[in-house]
């Protein structure tokens, strides 16, 4: 492997990792803070992509569509949490799995009713349509660089909000002792609803950013959901830092695994990695103190 190719593949791994982080961030937050397993997270990812594709078609402006789709999916998350999910925080993980499995079926068919079963087009934004030269002989798609930058900005923002703001303190306090937090004057119900809506918005953001590089189709959320769950548990449930590191690890291992091993091995490599890590660290790399 030449240096140029190595750099390019490393970038590919990093970019895939950051993409996975975008999907996982919302999932791990909701999982860690509300102790809620949301299998329908993949559906929100799908909604993000479908809504953005539709808004792009209407407005013709990618970035405007992005903002609209993120807001719309956040609103969907808000309504879901407010109407149904909040009743399930104290229920068993099993009930949550079942409930959100039901949501996957419902959301897939709703998508089919609204958009039909043929995949939707989603062009690149004009400004990011050309690859750029990052070093002699290495061209790299500029949109993927945008994903990389956006993902890292999101990671930084999440870190600052959770660790440095009063909202972050309320979130952490609410996660560890909901009743007490409430008795100190914090509207925990609202905070949780916002966290869920933010998680949904992040899933949508990931879906939108993956739209121009992959198929916008029904069921697109399911394979990505499994990857996100893998990242969540490797990183440690509820840990944003863990999610970032685990996501990049998975991105790297998957990318180099695909190049270096036959497909029979490379397709199970990330699961193998997860099994190994959990065998030695049963609560993931960074067990969150929640």
């Amino acid at each position, binding site marked *: 492997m030449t240096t140029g190719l190595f750099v390019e593949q490393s970038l590919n791994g990093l970019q895939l990792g950051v993409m996975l982080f975008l999907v996982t961030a919302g999932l791990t937050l909701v999982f860690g803070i509300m102790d809620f397993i949301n299998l329908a997270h993949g559906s929100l990812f799908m909604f993000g992509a479908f809504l953005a594709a539709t808004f792009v078609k209407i407005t013709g402006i990618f970035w405007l569509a992005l903002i609209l789709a993120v807001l719309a999916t956040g609103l969907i998350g808000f309504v879901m949490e407010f109407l149904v999910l909040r009743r399930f925080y104290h229920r068993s993980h099993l009930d949550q799995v079942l409930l959100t499995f039901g949501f996957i*079926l419902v959301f897939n068919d709703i998508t089919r009713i609204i958009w039909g079963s043929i995949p939707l087009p989603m062009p690149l934004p004009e400004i990011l349509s050309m690859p750029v030269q990052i070093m002699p002989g290495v061209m790299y798609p500029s949109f993927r660089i945008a994903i990389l930058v956006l993902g890292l900005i999101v990671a930084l923002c999440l870190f600052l909000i959770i660790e440095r703001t009063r909202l972050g303190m309320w979130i952490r306090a609410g996660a560890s002792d909901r009743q007490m937090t409430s008795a100190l004057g914090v509207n925990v119900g609202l905070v949780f609803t916002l966290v869920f809506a933010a998680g949904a918005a992040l899933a949508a953001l990931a879906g939108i950013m993956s739209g121009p590089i992959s198929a916008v189709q029904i069921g697109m959320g399911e394979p990505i959901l499994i990857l996100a769950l893998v990242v969540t*548990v490797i990183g440690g449930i509820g840990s944003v830092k863990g999610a970032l590191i685990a996501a990049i690890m998975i991105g790297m291992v998957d990318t180099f695994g695909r190049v270096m091993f036959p497909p029979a091995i490379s397709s199970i490599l990330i699961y193998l990695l997860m099994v190994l890590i959990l065998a030695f660290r049963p609560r993931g790399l960074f067990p969150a103190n929640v």
Partner: protein
Amino acid sequence: MTLSSVRQLVVPNWPVLLIFVLLALAPVWSMYGGSDFTIRLLTRALILALAAVGLNFVLGFGGLVSLMHASFFGVGAYTVAILAHHDFNGDTLFGLPGTSNLLVSGPAAVFLALVFAVATGALVLRTKGAYFIMMTLALNQMLFFFMIALQQYGGEDGMQIYLPLHLSGYEFGSDSAIYYTVLIVLAFFVFLLSRLVCSRFGNVIRASSENEERLTAIGISPFHYKLVAFTISGAVTAVAGVLWAISQEYVSPADLSWIRSADLVVIAVLGGLVRVWGPLVGALVFVLAEYFLSDITVYWQLVFGLGIIAVVVLFPGGMLSVWATIRKINWGRAHDA
């Protein structure tokens, strides 16, 4: 058997006995008015029920949410299919000839499932809660992708079983014969596991799902018990896989996808986890609802999904609790806060 022991067996178990009697009569009904297809549909439901009964032993009683039971199902089905495949081709596997005799391939399938369950159980049972769920999901995915990549056994295409499977010469002549075989095997395992959950071993399993720390403190290390339970559970589900191979004469990686694992969990939960036979109710509801809904509308998954959501929201104990919940409403008692 004394009269009182008969009463003891029948009285508390009348719902499940009634269900089994009705199921045993189904082929008669199908003869006069129904169709052959009814029997095939019920066979499918009963096989899935058996798989979920196996799962429910660790899920409902051990509190272990396993998303890898499709892989036990697949090990059972694939073992039979692969041995039959070599029998058909007339070649050998690791120097041994293939066989279509279920008296050989059936036990072989269960044995492989036991080995697989011990090996994977030793790994996954180190983790708890959501980590356990994910660990099992990962193992399921690994076997799934492995089977897809395994081209000599059909890969993603799966494998057709061309020669008739038989029990040392006795062939299943009809769909009804397969149906009754499945029904008897299911009844056998429901009875077996019903005894098991009330035994000392069953007590340890239920206690481990209640409070592991306490169990350790009274001198029982739950790990080995959970491993034995996990292995029994996996083997029962593998038996369902063997029956699947008999009934479908075809196996494919789709039979061991994580979606199938999730289906089994849904079946168990829909039926209610607190009874060994709960999954039987769940499987009948699941298969019949899927069949009739998909006949009515192409958007049947929407209806089915809403149904699942409604059950989880309204009846936290599964379908078995519907009756109890209705009674509660009639008596006008306030629900606990």
